């Protein structure tokens, strides 16, 4: 090897620029030719990421949604849900905020009557009590809403369910350019060539306003008010309205196997209860009116939670404790754990623990039986009445003003 290299050196004209040597130029051309294909593939992927809005900064997303109020937003790779919701509150400074897990994401601005323009649904951002505690701590006082509709999940009070996300880290996403995000995005597209091809074609057509691959492909996503528009196709006839648990694995299996968010527990965590108590006290002190809400489960999940000795004591204690805790701070709470209590059934659910929009209309109507809530939501009654009367309202979608 050495002899090859240095034999050549001896023969060369030491004063001539080696860039003029055909050998070097040919080598560079070969490298460039070889690189052409990967570069083109990377450029195509990057174009799809940019064109689809998958890697847009959140500021750009908000600006686009302001300009196109019908544009839905849902990324396919890292949804950056916490950041989108938290920064949505900072951006819009709403007076009514819905917060909780994905089980609260379907409350819409239009349901809230005269205060619809000052509403933001931050559902999906709080998946544990630690998230709630952090949210309460980091939100600047100038952005505190006057009304907080807070969905509390069963597992928040279960000591055997550790928090998964770091709130601070999650809300800092999406602020600027991230090289890693682009690499992850391109990898995702290369692993999903159908999405890559579909998006590339869709970008050429230019008719899809949605932001993010998930929103563009499936048709669901977040509206500018933060609420989630479901991508599910509405059944066409009464016969097709059959409850199907669309989660994987189905929620009932998780409960039966005591897995994921449903590990066995004998009692409500005292420590976590104290955290919730402290958070409610802070809101009370800051004059934020909190409306408690326990989102629903499908009837088979409710039956399993009630009958299974690994869950039943915890489940009943949870439902017994929550109203009292909220009451101590002067806040109302609606226990909508069982859809039947609101006159609904499993057809209102898209899976074992997510209810669709119509259920939220019923929940809001139930909440408004409390005079304090009714007083805070002028004009909401009329909107809800209209939705109830409309033939366009089905088990999932409510006929609400746009």
């Amino acid at each position: 090897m050495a002899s090859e290299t240095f034999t050549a050196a001896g023969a060369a004209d030491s004063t001539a620029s080696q860039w003029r040597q055909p050998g070097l130029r040919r080598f560079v051309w070969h490298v460039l030719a070889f690189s052409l294909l990967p570069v083109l593939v990377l450029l195509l992927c990057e174009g799809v990421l940019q064109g689809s809005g998958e890697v847009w900064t959140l500021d750009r997303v908000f600006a686009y949604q302001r300009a196109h109020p019908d544009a839905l937003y849902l990324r396919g790779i890292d949804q950056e849900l916490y950041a989108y919701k938290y920064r949505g509150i900072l951006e819009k400074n709403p007076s009514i905020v819905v917060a909780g897990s994905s089980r609260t994401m379907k409350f819409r601005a239009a349901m809230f009557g005269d205060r619809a323009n000052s509403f933001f649904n931050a559902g999906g951002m709080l998946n544990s009590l630690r998230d709630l505690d952090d949210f309460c701590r980091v939100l600047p006082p100038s952005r505190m809403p006057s009304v907080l509709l807070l969905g509390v999940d069963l597992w928040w009070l279960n000591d055997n369910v550790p928090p998964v996300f770091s709130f601070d880290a999650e809300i800092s996403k999406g602020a600027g350019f991230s090289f890693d995000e682009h690499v992850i995005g391109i990898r995702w597209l290369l692993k999903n060539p159908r999405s890559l091809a579909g998006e590339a074609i869709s970008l050429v057509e230019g008719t899809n306003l949605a932001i993010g691959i998930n929103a563009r492909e499936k048709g669901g996503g977040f509206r500018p008010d933060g609420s989630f528009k479901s991508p599910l196709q509405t059944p066409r006839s009464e016969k097709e309205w059959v409850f199907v648990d669309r989660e994987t694995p189905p929620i009932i299996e998780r409960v039966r196997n005591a897995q994921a968010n449903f590990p066995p527990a004998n009692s409500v965590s005292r420590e976590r209860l104290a955290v919730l108590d402290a958070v409610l006290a802070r809101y009370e002190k800051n004059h934020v009116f909190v409306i408690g809400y326990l989102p629903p489960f499908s009837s088979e999940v409710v039956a399993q939670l009630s009958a299974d000795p690994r869950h039943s004591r915890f489940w009943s204690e949870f439902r017994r404790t929550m109203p009292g805790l909220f009451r101590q701070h002067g806040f109302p709470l609606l226990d909508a754990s069982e859809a039947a209590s609101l006159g609904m059934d499993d057809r209102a659910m898209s899976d074992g623990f997510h209810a669709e929009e119509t259920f939220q209309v019923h929940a809001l109507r139930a909440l408004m039986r409390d005079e304090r809530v009714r007083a805070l939501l002028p004009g909401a009654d009329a909107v809800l009445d209209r939705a109830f009367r409309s033939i366009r309202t089905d088990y999932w979608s409510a006929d609400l003003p746009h």
Partner: protein
Amino acid sequence: MVFTSLNFIVFYIIVFALYWPLSKEGQNRLIVLSGLVFYGAWDWRFAVLLLITTGIDYGVGLALEKEADELKRKAWVLLSLVTNLGVLAFFKYFNFFSESFVRFSALFGMHPSMVTLKILLPMGISFYTFQALSYTIDVYRRELETVHDPVRYFGFILFFPHLVAGPIVRAKNLLGQFNERRVFNPATAPDALRQMLWGFFIKVVIADNLGTVVSLSYDHIDATSGWQLLYATVCFAIQIYCDFAGYTHIAIGCARLLGIDLMRNFAYPYFSRSIPEFWGRWHISLTRWFREYLYLPLGGNQVPYRRWMLNVLIVFIVSGFWHGANWTFLVWGFLHGVLYLVYVRVWPDSRRLITATPGGTSWVPSLSSCLQIALTFFLTCFAWIFFRAASVTDALVILRKIGSDVTTTSPRFTYKEAALWIVVLFAIEWIQRDHANPLHLERFPRPVRWSLYYAFAAAIFMFAPIHYTPFIYFQF
């Protein structure tokens, strides 16, 4: 700056573009400058330290040339040894000696208050120190002429491809290459690129992914079953090989593209049929350095048998200590020393296998070869346990668990992926073991070659961990 970063790729393209139009002096100056940028990007203060020690060695070389008096010559070379090894000892071993002294004193009821310092280890200090020593010792022995041109000498030390993790090329093999203007060789350049591609592949795809499996087990030994620890040990054997050999392949490829040849550092060590053969195939440049500057000065094999055995043990223990200031490395070195001696005693010819095709020339190795390879691999894995464990106590716990608890937990999915990478590695290496570069594919037509390059490049892009994983040998 590390090879597996985007910064390095941009840096290398700039250096490559600037390098070839330059004259010999210009090329050498660019090598010095780029070495400083490369090293200073990590921590400029240590670049200054590197310049100081390099300057001293350069000066010692000049002094040795002028000095005829043997005693004074010894004093000069001693200055170089004390400076280089002193800096190494301070940064790498100060805390180890301090803590060991306190523990040792406690055995006799004494409790001296010793200082431990929060010392950041300069990257690659063990490598460039040995490289520099090879120069002053060779000049002292009159085996090498003194270099007068400071740029050439600094270029020899600061040549960035091998600056922080070798190969440790002896001065007499490298300095000469800076004497002439390098001329681009289109015949070898594609192979250099292929070697870099292979280096990237085994580092970021194999080593870094296996590293996750290893850390999951070795960092939580109490919660890990014997089976998982056994699997993790095999993974570590592959991880450290791919990590270090990957670095070396990239380094050699980078250097070859700049017209400089670095020595081969790995020659398919896991196909070795004996421990002596393993040491002829693993970290070859370090083994040769120790042979030249420690084993032979100790008398080599021209001494009585028992003294020779002691010499071998000393070399292996020092080699272990070179890796790090921890008893685990000493035990690792000692184990290899003992195994080496046992092999030479039982199978004297096993040393001669180093020159043969690794694993034998046959496509399908004989049963005896398979057993020999498997036994050698098993023994190296046994020693790796001490190398990787946080302490000797941990290593003993791991051995006990492997010996008693190999049934509890089945491997998780990532474990199966790791197994796939191991199979890919060994399959390619076995097929290509006659070539120094496993991606030497000249015998295939271009469409096949390019398809394979694309496949490796795609694997690197798709499977490399998103976050940078440091090269293991940087810590040495």
